[in-house]
């Protein structure tokens, strides 16, 4: 009898996304806070690619034996940490502060919206599970 696997990969993916977006919020807040700090190099957090990699099935991996089992990814989802990319100032003059405030504000809004979307999606999914677990009540 296989172990009860209630919380499948899609929920784990959503949780991981929340982790990454929260981390991203910190990075963006740092950039905004240092928008006028001389010499400051803004950073970006890249994680979408890592998530994609972690979800892709390995070539030659064991095939799913049951239609509802999701394929095992080439990377472990829990290992996704996000990559920090520094973006040094390219203008070459002034105080070498590379922060573009407009861009950061847009990134802020986008990140926030996506985070909130995922919380809604997780709530919905957990709600469905709860409904089923309560035998339709």
């Amino acid at each position, binding site marked *: 009898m296989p172990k009860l696997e209630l919380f499948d990969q899609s929920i784990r993916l959503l949780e991981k996304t*929340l982790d990454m977006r929260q981390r991203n919020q*910190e990075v963006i807040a740092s950039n905004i806070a240092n928008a*006028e700090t001389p010499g*400051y190099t803004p950073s970006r957090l890249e994680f979408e690619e890592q998530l994609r990699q972690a979800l892709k099935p390995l070539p030659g991996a064991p095939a799913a034996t049951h239609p509802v089992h999701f394929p095992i990814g080439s990377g472990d989802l829990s290992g996704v940490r996000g990559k920090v990319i520094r973006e040094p100032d390219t203008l070459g003059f002034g105080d070498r502060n590379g922060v573009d*405030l407009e861009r950061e504000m847009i990134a802020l809004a986008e990140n926030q919206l996506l985070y909130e979307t995922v919380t809604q999606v997780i709530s919905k999914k957990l709600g469905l599970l709860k409904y089923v677990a309560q035998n339709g009540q």
Partner: protein
Amino acid sequence: MDIFDSLKISSSALAAQQVRLNTISSNLANIETTRTPDGGPYRKREVVFRSTESPFAKKLEQSLKGAVQGVEVAAIQVNNAPPRVIYDPSHPDADEAGQVLLPNVNLLDEMVDMTSATRAYEANVTAIKAAKRMALKALEIGR
């Protein structure tokens, strides 16, 4: 790795921009001040910002360390550019040649700086609002 650190970072920026606004106010208030305790006209004050290694840095992973930083005012510098000189023999502080040394504060520069500081302040307030909303949404999971 939490939303509260983001709040700390943004609020450090609010504090820093506030100091900058105060400095600008001081410059504007003293734009005509010809007498100071140190002698001579008022000299423009400027803030110097510096990013801070967050106190929570030890909890962060190596890769994030450089990316998550607050900001602080490293120093309030006195600008030693030469004072403005005008010719006004009737001024109480005119010298023998009738010249008066006025503060090296330029009204337009200060107004532009003030606009910039206000914009930066507001940007950080927006960042705080975003973080707060995210946290509140997280609390609604499952409700």
